């Protein structure tokens, strides 16, 4: 080892009665070279950071790379989501039915409670914790911009939802082919189903993230997301069935605009050849159908804009 290091400061402190020591100190003072170096390897840059944020968020949405406890809920919901598809396939194979019990496009509508719970559990997990542990400023100290963060989180949440909703459709499709159902028919159905759940994923991811980004507390985020998804649905269904009983079918068709899941239901009924879960399998009129599609796209874009606005400030 080299001789004991001294600086002029420590010299003054140690020798109060020795002005000579102060004068001698600069000659004896030096700084150790402990081998710090510049990093001159490749810098991976913004695109890489964005990609990493995306893949981490997507993995996190299924608890991968996190503790075993946080894997339980997403995996359980994923299993619950796929289980009915397995049952439908089994029934189709053993009864030699000529069609599946359930349309591809309606599957997600039937299991909306599971999708809602998944979103409610995972959207706050994705953004609220960043707020609570104040890691948002750390992200922005990397070479990513606000738009990268928002896009990565949005894309990751939408992809996670798409995996959740598309997996059972693929199971249905595989089962349908095994049961020797009509290939063209089933492929068309799968295509329509996938488009429908893609829209649903984008819409739900947007809504979930906007709400979750407003609170650093996970619990409130979960409750708020589920409230926004289920309360309008319950309200719309109640009023729709009343309107339908009163014979006001047109009003019932338009009412679906006011809750996320009926919005998707309306779009898939009109454009993707599905049957709606509205009372009497009511189909919205053509004008209403276009409004449904328009509103869906506006809500998705609006959620993105709100998220961008929200992250202008890193904190709350």
């Amino acid at each position, binding site marked *: 080892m080299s001789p004991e290091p001294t600086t002029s400061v420590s010299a003054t402190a140690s020798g109060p009665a020795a002005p000579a020591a102060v004068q001698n100190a600069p000659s004896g003072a030096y700084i150790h070279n402990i081998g710090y170096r510049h990093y001159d390897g490749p810098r991976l840059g913004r695109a890489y950071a964005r990609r990493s944020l995306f893949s981490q968020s997507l993995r996190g949405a299924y608890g991968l790379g996190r503790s075993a406890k946080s894997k339980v809920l997403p995996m359980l919901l994923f299993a619950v989501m796929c289980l009915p598809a397995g049952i439908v396939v089994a029934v189709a194979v053993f009864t030699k039915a000529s069609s599946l019990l359930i349309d591809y496009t309606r599957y997600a509508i039937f299991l909306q409670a599971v999708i809602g719970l998944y979103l409610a*559990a995972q959207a706050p997990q994705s953004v609220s914790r960043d707020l609570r542990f104040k890691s948002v400023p750390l992200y922005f100290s990397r070479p990513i911009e606000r738009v990268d963060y928002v896009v990565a989180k949005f894309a990751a949440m939408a992809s996670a939802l798409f995996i959740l909703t598309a997996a059972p459709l693929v199971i249905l499709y595989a089962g349908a082919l095994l049961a020797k159902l009509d290939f063209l028919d089933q492929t068309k159905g799968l295509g329509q189903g996938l488009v429908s759940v893609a829209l649903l994923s984008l819409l739900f991811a947007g809504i979930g993230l906007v709400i979750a980004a407003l609170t650093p507390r996970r619990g409130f985020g979960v409750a708020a997301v589920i409230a926004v998804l289920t*309360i309008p649905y319950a309200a719309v269904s109640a009023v729709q069935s*009343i309107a339908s009983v009163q014979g006001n079918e047109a009003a019932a068709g338009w009412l679906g605009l006011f809750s996320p899941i009926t919005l998707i239901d309306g779009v898939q009924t009109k454009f993707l050849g599905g049957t709606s879960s509205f009372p009497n399998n009511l189909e919205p009129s053509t004008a209403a159908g276009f409004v449904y599609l328009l509103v869906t796209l506006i809500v998705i874009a609006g959620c993105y804009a709100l998220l961008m606005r929200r992250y202008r400030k890193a904190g709350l």
Partner: protein
Amino acid sequence: MSTTSPATSPPALTSPKASLFNPTVARLTYRALLGRRRALILFALPALLVAIAILVRSLVGADDTTANGILGGFALGTMVPLIGVIAGTGAIGPEIDDGSVVYLLAKPVSRSTIIFTKLLVAIGVTVAFSAVPILVAGFVLNGNSQQIAVAYALAAAVASIAYSALFLFFGTVTRHAVVFGLVYALVWESLFGNLVPGAKTLSVQQWALAVGQKIGAEGAITSDVQLPLAISLLAAVTVAATWYAGRRLTSLTLAGEE
């Protein structure tokens, strides 16, 4: 300790222990539930219910079946459990989640007092935000014909007590209390309740409906559970959940963030 302080401090120490209700804990819980923007989500639900009631009344007019559908399906079926989840788990969950509950537990207040106080506040909030608007909406919908408004309001109040106790208990047991509360309220009561007849016997909603059935006019409200069974189950769930929540709190271990 100085010799003069015991003269003043014992009353301050013993008085919270003596009663099951602690006003300070109540105030803190109340502020945690209704502070700042959290109140908005709680105000939005009753406002929506009353708005729907006004809309339906103006579109359809007074009609008992409609009122039954909205108060039973939407209000009691969705709104009450949701407010119960928010108030019940919100009364204790966030504190356990961020670890600040240790400061509360370190005070000379018995754990069962804490739970009981929090339960009272949660019940109060749930009743105020569900039973009262249901009463208002019921009067708007059909002017309390067949006692429907009063019956549903009372059913909601009874359900509020059970839900608050149940979800407060969930809050002490798991970090994912909100999710499990929602799974119970939405999946078990709504989904299984409709598919499996037996599941209805184990549903707070049906127990509350049994109370409503007693009050409403003959045949106005139906429940799948007999009244004596419903009341004893309601009481059993409330007491058991509160007792066990108190026990959980005495042996609480704080988990770190996952």
